[in-house]
């Protein structure tokens, strides 16, 4: 009985989640004439659908679109590559260092995490001008690399590790790298994967940051065209939205499944330390 109810609830939730996505897919493969999107009285379906892949074809022949796509991939993946080690090390440091000062630093991380970007938009722009990194991907990647989200999330994740496990491990080794790598990280592996996804999506969907730090349209990521409040919905929007999301979703599906299907290793294998 409980199983049935829970299944019912979940299916309902799934439907809620999927309906808009299906609508998006539908729109991306039907007639490209979507001028009604911006009309005063928006409605869901106004025309008889005619299936077409013209919108996708048009997108992938657009050099500008491809260039921006490549920029998005470059910025997001390079940012992630730096974000993870920064977050792991800083998070580990903050969670292992007990003092009033560290508590304050953690508070700053959390406050900065919640603060809207508009609050520091102007000073960040000025900083990039002053350091002469304005209009470079480096500025954007550097800015993202130290995002408070990564460190704050890692700080919380390290908090989930059981004290006893840590003590047992500490009796065997005093190498911090070994401790981090063989004892701590395996325990939070799944959490780390989830945070990696969050960080990636966070960068992938950024609008204001590239807007402020880049001026050359050839350096801009795709989110600026597809995700900004001033973008205009036209025939290509839906196809764009899908093309923009699908590869990333596929990547994440592969990533998540591979992480989750690995044997659980939340138990610490202290003996593993002897071998290293």
């Amino acid at each position, binding site marked *: 009985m409980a199983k049935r109810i829970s299944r019912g609830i979940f299916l309902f939730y799934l439907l809620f989640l999927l309906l808009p996505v299906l609508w998006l897919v539908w729109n991306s493969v039907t007639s490209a004439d979507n001028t009604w999107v911006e009309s*005063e009285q928006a409605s869901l379906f106004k025309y008889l659908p005619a299936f077409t892949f013209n919108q996708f074809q048009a997108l992938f022949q657009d050099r500008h679109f491809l260039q921006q796509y490549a920029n998005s991939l470059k910025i997001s993946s390079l940012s992630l*590559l*730096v974000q*993870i*080690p*920064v977050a*792991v*090390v800083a998070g580990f440091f903050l969670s292992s260092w007990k003092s009033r000062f560290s508590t304050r630093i953690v508070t700053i991380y959390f406050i900065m995490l919640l603060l809207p970007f508009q609050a520091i*938009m*102007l000073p960040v*722009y*000025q900083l990039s*001008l002053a*350091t*002469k*990194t*304005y*209009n*470079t991907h*480096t500025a954007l990647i*550097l800015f993202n*690399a130290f995002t408070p989200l990564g460190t704050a999330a890692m700080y919380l994740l390290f908090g989930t590790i059981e004290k006893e496990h840590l003590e047992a491990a500490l009796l065997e080794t005093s190498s911090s*790298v070994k401790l*981090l*790598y063989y004892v701590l*990280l395996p325990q939070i*592996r799944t959490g780390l994967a989830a945070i990696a996804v969050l960080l990636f999506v966070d960068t992938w969907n950024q609008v*204001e940051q590239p*807007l*402020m730090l880049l*001026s*050359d349209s*050839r*350096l801009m990521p795709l989110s600026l065209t597809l995700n900004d409040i*001033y973008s205009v919905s036209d025939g290509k929007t839906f196809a764009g939205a899908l093309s923009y999301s699908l590869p990333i979703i596929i990547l994440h599906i592969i990533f998540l499944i591979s992480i989750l299907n690995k044997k659980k290793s939340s138990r610490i294998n202290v003996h593993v330390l002897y071998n290293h």
Partner: protein
Amino acid sequence: MKLYMRLIKPLLIICSLLLVATSAKSETYVKSKNRMMYAVSNSYIWTVGEDGKTYYYDSQKVKTMAPDISDAKRVSAYSNSLYCVTQQGEILIVTAGSEEATHYPITADLDIRQIEAADGILYILAAEQGSTGFQVYAADPYGIRFYFPLSIDGWENSNISSIAYYNGYLCAYSSENGNLALISFLEDTNGKLVYPTVTVDDLQYVQVGETAGDIIHIYALNDPSKQIQLWDINALTGEKISAGLPFPENAMGLRRNSNALFVLSNEGKELYEIPIHTQNESRTLTLKNFIGEVSSPDPRLKIAMELFYQKYPDVELVSDFITDVRVLSAGVMAGAPGYDVITVQENWTNIPSILMFKAGALENLYDYECVKEKADKISDIITPLVIDGQLVSVPNTIIPFTWSIDTELEQRLDISVPRDGWSWDMFFDLAAKIKEYNETNKTNYYLIHDNQDVLPYFLKMYNDNYVDAYNGTAAYNSEEFVRLLEKWVEICKDNLVLFRTDDGSNNALLHVKRLPYEETREDITLLLPPVFEEGNRYPARIASICLNSNSPMKEEGAYFLSCWISEEALSSYVTISNNGYLLNSAAVSSNALEGNQGVWQYMLKHTVNDYYIGDLYKDQWQTLYPQLINGKITPLQYAQTCQRRAEMVLGE
């Protein structure tokens, strides 16, 4: 995970290096893996790599990618363009910000050794096929369709080995006989020797130098047989002394902008910057969102630029465009380079000039004597640009929404429409007459055809006259407005208003048009629109130019604005809309309403700026007005909602 652990150390090093690299000052301007070529203008430094990768750097050294140029042979830059002669015998012109280069095949049969770009001209050091001596030619940059050797009295144009062009001066050196000449194109476009040629031995590269005590100097590098040094040569006497500037050991080429000299390392992989200590650092004045381009100026801009360069020959004017309002705000607030003089088009710019002025972002132009003097001459037409007694901007174009009348129809309907001094009540009285005529004669005449904007003229006029964005007040709550709005809704219901459509315009008595001055033809009859009360002004589309308070070049910017509204510039003929009217209308002293031009000029002197104030007006045309006409809300509700919205938007 292992990968990440291994990456931590190198990443740390990279991060710290990045920080060091961005903070440390170095003589090296650009370092590249490949050999490169470079070109310098006052606006940008360009580098073209062996692999074709082309970049340009602005005065803040911000690097931007330009379209690739493969097989570049000779390069030179002027203003915001790079000119490049390729191995394939083409001239490529790349403009900063453009996505592609323009190609021009070279038709001339020349062996080109060096090019120097100037305003619309290329100076070429070349030898005609077959001859051995190199001469200096003047040519057009669009494929060298025509060219001729420079012929200047007192100078022998033969066996030249190096040339350089900067700010209207060309210097040419012949290593064969040591002749060094300095030619000026400032007064005579054919060129004139500034001083008689002097003889200086063992030079390789020359460049126009600074003026010291009225005498122009020349920078030069000696030939590589000795240790390379930077020399400062008095162009009058030929006296050669060390320039006393820090200088790298291996160097070739010698180019400059207003701030620095640039030389390339021997391997061609490192570009050095040698700062020249002149009075100012940034010498580029940017016209932001300017309507028109500095690189291809219309007559008005051309004259304004000429006037400007007479006073500031060392400041370069550039224009560029930015559409995102957030970037514009950030740039203006930060005082970032490139936000000096800003053009506002009030009907679509998301931030109207009045709010920029309120924020303190704009200079009061009356504080600048040069602008005040010019502005006073057109004082009665720039009233909409004056807020609180301060001049916020100078006009680009001012075009009022004019009314015209179909006189034939007026006769047929047997009514007489006042040509001026009438009120909206009188306007609505006309409606009753037409309604009656339509009913008796089974006709379908409209009182007014209004398709010039998203809101009808009636509401536009009220918005523009009774919303004060500067003081943050609005007056939609007045009983008078609600009463008139009721009448307006009534005539709309009676089908007497043809709104936002072009059909059947022949059936309307009155027409609203945004008519440029030169289109005040004789076959139409203009009249003054009705008013809510005496003293109302007429809505107009205004594009104007203002000056950023944070700009480091305020004096220069103000001077440009004064050139922009100078008599010379205003009276020039511009094809899109004749700017002469600004001057002519101002000159007409009487308020006579004779003929179409008289009406037009009267309106011009009584305009109000049609500011677009964010969501306030968008709500009106997108939601409220359709609801009002469809009877979903009453005029009173309309007025109350508008007032509430206005208080929110203006009182934020």
